[in-house]
């Protein structure tokens, strides 16, 4: 399981931000060739991101490049960026499985023979993209996650974007469900007010409750809050360990059914407990170290 609790956007034409992007501890850094780059600077950003990918050490952060949409510079972005070995490409405004097929073919053509296959994360930010979410997630084995882009999406709906997010509730649950059905991750839209930490906390907690596995981020200051929410708590870990203990004990006694504090422990409960423990292990939270 790849950890994508936080995915931090970094403007692709800003050398200072690009060279320091690895120090914030985001699970993924997204080097952005799309919205963060002025139209006249697309070429310069492409050269810069390509060079940066070859030389800057992003530590444990996954390197993701957001390319431009398919109807603009996607082809030239992919041709320049893929040979520089990013971990993944974030494709904006994906509207159909055909879009993913097209991107996957371009990536395959640009990859060097010895390179690790480049993954695809589909950014769904139009009403059509939301409708097609499941087919997009299943379109190609390279797809590892669906991400929601709520700003463009609400513009497409003609709805007012609010901090409460009622206008994107349906889209959120569709993306989460489609991703889960396709066995890929779901990543929530960014919280765009970088100065509102309480709002970010509430929005991230809601995202986690709904089932998202991570959140896009537009400011390094948001990362700690996002991680705090998505990290399993000590109570979660304790509960998960008790569940696993109970089911193992039951199995040893020849019973497939276990109970914990009077509640039945069945397969979905065990699966949830295993996910929590796996995440805790990845984060070094086991044994009460943190």
């Amino acid at each position: 399981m790849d950890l994508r609790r936080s995915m931090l956007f970094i403007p692709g034409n800003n050398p200072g931000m690009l060279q320091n992007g690895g120090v914030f501890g985001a699970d993924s850094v997204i080097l952005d060739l799309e919205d963060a780059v002025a139209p006249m600077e697309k070429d310069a950003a492409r050269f810069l991101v390509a060079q940066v990918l070859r030389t800057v050490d992003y530590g444990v952060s996954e390197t993701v490049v957001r390319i431009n949409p398919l109807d603009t510079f996607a082809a030239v972005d992919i041709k320049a960026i893929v040979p520089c070995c990013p971990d993944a490409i974030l494709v904006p405004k994906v509207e159909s499985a055909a879009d993913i097929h097209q991107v996957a073919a371009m990536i395959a053509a640009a990859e060097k023979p010895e390179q690790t296959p480049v993954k695809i994360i589909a950014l769904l930010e139009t009403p059509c993209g939301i409708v097609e979410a499941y087919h997009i997630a299943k379109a190609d084995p390279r797809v590892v996650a669906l991400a929601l882009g709520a700003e463009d999406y609400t513009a497409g709906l003609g709805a007012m974007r609010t901090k409460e997010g009622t206008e994107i509730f349906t889209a959120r649950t569709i993306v989460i469900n489609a991703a889960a059905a396709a066995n890929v991750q779901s990543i929530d839209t960014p919280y765009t007010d970088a100065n509102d930490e309480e709002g970010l906390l509430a929005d991230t907690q809601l995202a986690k409750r709904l089932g998202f596995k991570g959140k896009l981020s537009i400011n390094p200051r948001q990362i700690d809050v996002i991680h705090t929410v998505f990290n399993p708590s000590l109570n979660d870990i304790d509960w998960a360990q008790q569940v696993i203990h109970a089911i193992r004990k039951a199995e040893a006694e020849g019973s497939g059914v276990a109970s914990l504090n009077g509640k039945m422990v069945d397969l979905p409960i065990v699966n949830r407990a295993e996910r929590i423990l796996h995440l805790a292990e990845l984060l070094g939270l086991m044994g009460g170290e943190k």
Partner: protein
Amino acid sequence: MASIAKTAQAGTLESSDVMITVAPGTQGSGIVIELESIVLAQYGEDIKIILEKTVKDQGITDIYIKAVDRGALDCTICARTLAALSRAGAVLKEEII
């Protein structure tokens, strides 16, 4: 032999960036570099080597380059030079991009 057709510029004067201006050189003029840098004393020669290597790797031998450096890393100097060359009409070698 690659060449450039016109004067072009890439980069900014922001911290950690470098602004590169390239102009066609006359035949036989060689690679002429004019460099301003906030770290000229410490890294001036290194920056010139990167500039020279980047254009030579593209097969360009006669060119004028002006670089105004604000503490750019090697990768930024290389990227901005390539962007300027591309904007000046050079056909770049694909593997460098």
